[in-house]
């Protein structure tokens, strides 16, 4: 019988479909793992954004992974019991975002302000001489910025409360 810790470890290989360097565990969207018996596992997930279109796909990816390690009875449920916010990204998750060329979200104190969004750190050169072009981007979780030092556009994984 698997322990919960072993299930969490097994799920570390399941990556975000849009950011292939980032695991769903590090993203903080897997909120609960329960081993309910021999070969019976229950997993709870929560979306980064309510309208995230990748949600069903991610549920299936989690179920596939559990099947791969030999679990027979699998239930994956999406809930808002513990809603996601960007502080839930792990330290490793923040590094993965950077590796993918995305500015990681700054830690917030429960409030998002314009100041927090402006001048985010450029993931290419580390400068803070940057400006936000628009709070919306190619996916719901990203905003678009420009760096005045290395003259490159970049995206940020948005801070969300």
């Amino acid at each position, binding site marked *: 019988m698997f322990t919960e810790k072993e299930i969490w470890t097994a799920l570390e290989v399941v990556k975000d479909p849009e950011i292939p360097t980032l695991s769903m565990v590090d993203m903080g969207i897997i909120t609960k793992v329960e081993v309910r018996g021999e070969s019976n596992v229950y997993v709870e997930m929560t*979306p980064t*954004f*309510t*309208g*995230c*279109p990748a949600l069903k796909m991610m549920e299936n990816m989690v179920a596939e992974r559990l099947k791969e390690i030999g679990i027979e009875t699998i239930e994956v449920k999406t*809930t*808002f*019991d513990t*809603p*996601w*916010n960007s502080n839930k990204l792990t330290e490793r998750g923040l590094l993965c975002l950077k590796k993918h060329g995305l500015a990681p979200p700054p830690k917030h104190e429960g409030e*998002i302000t*314009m100041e927090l*969004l402006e001048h985010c750190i450029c993931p290419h050169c580390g400068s803070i001489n940057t400006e936000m*072009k*628009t*709070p*919306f*981007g*190619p996916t*719901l979780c990203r905003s*678009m910025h420009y760096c005045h030092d290395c003259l490159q556009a970049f995206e940020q994984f*948005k801070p*969300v*409360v």
Partner: protein
Amino acid sequence: MNVTAIKDLLYKMADDLLIIGHRNSEWTGLGPILEEDIAFSSMAQDKIGQAGALFEILHELGEGEPDTVAFMRDANKMHCSQFVELPNGEYDFSIMRHFLFDHADQLRFEMLANSSFEPLAQVAKKIKGELKYHVFHANTWVVKLGNGSEESKARMQTALNESWNYALGMFEAGDFEKELQSENIFKGEEALKTRWMANITPFIEKANLKIPDQSTWEPILGGRKGYHTDYLQKLVEEMGEVFRLDPTAQW
């Protein structure tokens, strides 16, 4: 818990989001600049997703499947305010409606984050954070365009004048205001309107625009009770056109 009152509240919120979401999506491919095209498309996706989450709660309370409820009802069965169903018009009106609507909706979800109806409180905690970005976007453009050229300023003032009574209609009292308040589910439309006024006023001032004189205020009501402009029926038919071809199809 008064389930009838909760359903009434959820339906009007979900319908507002569904319809304004579809209106936002009509800017996809037509935005005046690429960033704005993306902004309205992103907000559309957010809002329709948020509507989906509310329809999901309704489903758990015994209402139909979310897709069926969203796409099979005719206009007279919908509870959105008339404000959100109006056509997009030009960019001035779209931005002004976005500003007036999103301030109200963001506050509504902020209030509901403390609701005694737990499933709604949980979803509201999530949605209020997402709507923050919509409000930022609206504030930026209202202030920018209000302080732009003579033409942009005049257009924004006209848009505000034309929107105003429709915007007041968003706060049409429901049949269950007392029940919702006494059970700590929702503090009510009047409380929401007061907070909304306090929040929008500084931005309207910053934009050098004027709220229409109070003597002209006449909230346009009826939407919450199923009375709509002719625009809504056309919209729901278009929105549900594919779904209605074969409601049992697997997507």
